[in-house]
């Protein structure tokens, strides 16, 4: 492959990853790392370095747009980031102490269960109003946004805040222990436990993943995993893709986004179970 073709192909792939990440609240690592390593044959460490850059680029591009349209909820995002970043710091400290394969297997089984429960909610456009959670009231974990697909304002309030906070700590712990991103887990915790609208969950996840990734970006940089020639076209492509993704997401229904999210969850569940069983995947 010629250098120009390589850079162009990396850029094109990253536009796609950025668009998907912006809509689904993921960093894009789940798509980028296998593509960079399997199709482009790029060293895994550089692929992971480019992935962490892509998460922050997606977050910067998408969260800025979602914050302006009130789809990202800053309070919910910052409240939950405390759980994720502290979980990640504890996870990084425990790395090497806890057997990662057992964790991956347990995580994979939990994700498989979540995939099935999400399948049952496929037709749910907006969650039913529930009893107010005292923590949600105390910390103002609520908001409203204009839903372009429904053509009306949607008000929402978080529920089961303790469970959501615990799930976020777990997501951070696993990301610190296993070195994986946790965008999908964040969306799952907000959608499943806290019963936020799917769009708010993915948009708020977009705001959060930039912050949680920044916490580990320094480590990747210091290790020499961020290669300018790989990370640069990825960063530019992902940012462009994220801008297009945010425009598309505003017009999508919550049910459509959930339908697109299910295969990602299913893939994560399968890959985690396989890794837990010692069957290697990129």
């Amino acid at each position, binding site marked *: 492959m010629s250098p120009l073709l390589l850079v162009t192909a990396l850029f094109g792939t990253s536009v796609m990853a950025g668009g998907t990440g912006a809509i689904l609240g993921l960093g894009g690592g789940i798509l980028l790392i296998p593509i960079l390593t399997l199709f482009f044959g790029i060293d895994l460490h550089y692929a992971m370095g480019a992935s962490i850059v892509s998460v922050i680029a997606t977050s910067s591009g998408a969260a800025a747009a979602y914050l302006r349209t009130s789809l990202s909820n800053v*309070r919910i995002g910052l409240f939950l980031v*405390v759980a994720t970043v502290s979980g990640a710091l504890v996870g990084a400290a425990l790395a090497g102490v806890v057997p990662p394969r057992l964790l991956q297997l347990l995580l994979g089984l939990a994700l498989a269960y979540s995939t099935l429960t999400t399948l049952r909610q496929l037709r749910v456009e907006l969650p039913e109003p529930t009893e107010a959670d005292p923590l949600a009231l105390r910390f103002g974990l609520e908001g409203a946004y204009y839903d372009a697909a429904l053509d009306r304002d949607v008000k929402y309030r978080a529920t089961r805040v303790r469970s959501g906070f615990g799930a976020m700590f777990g997501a951070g712990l696993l990301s610190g222990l296993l070195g994986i991103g946790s965008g999908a887990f964040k969306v799952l915790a907000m959608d499943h436990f806290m019963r936020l609208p799917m769009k708010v969950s993915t948009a708020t996840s977009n705001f959060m993943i930039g912050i949680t990734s920044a916490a580990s970006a320094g480590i990747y940089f210091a290790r020499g995993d961020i290669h300018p020639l790989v990370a640069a076209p990825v*960063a*530019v492509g992902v940012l462009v893709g994220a801008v297009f993704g945010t425009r598309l997401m505003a017009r999508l229904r919550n049910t459509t986004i959930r339908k697109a999210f299910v295969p990602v969850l299913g893939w994560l569940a399968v890959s985690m179970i396989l890794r837990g069983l010692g069957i290697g995947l990129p």
Partner: protein
Amino acid sequence: MSRPVAIERIIARILTFGGLFSIALVLGGLVVYAAAGHPQAREIVRVVHNREAGRAVDVFTSLGDVWRALAQRPPDPLAITALGLVCLLVTPVLGVAAAAVAFWRSGDRDYAAISGIVLAMLVLSFALAAAG
């Protein structure tokens, strides 16, 4: 009490400006690198496929590395790209710092404290990374 919309706009502006500024540096460095006919421009494919070959020449692992490469005459174009990537990595941290200040100024002490905690944890993680 707080004015959430104003706070969200401030953070959005920082993320937008940080993202665009970083990408301008990243692209600028790449364009100069390609235009200068850098001796390694033809070897990008080899470099990205071989970690050790790339590490020796192109990969910056500290701000000091980037700074030294920028101080050369002429500056190393890939150092400009690396500086852009560093700015991108720092952008979310600036967003959290701005949120802490904005919440404090709007009188929302709870969220000023929460943003401050997040910021402290980010600084701790950077310190741990720098300590190796």
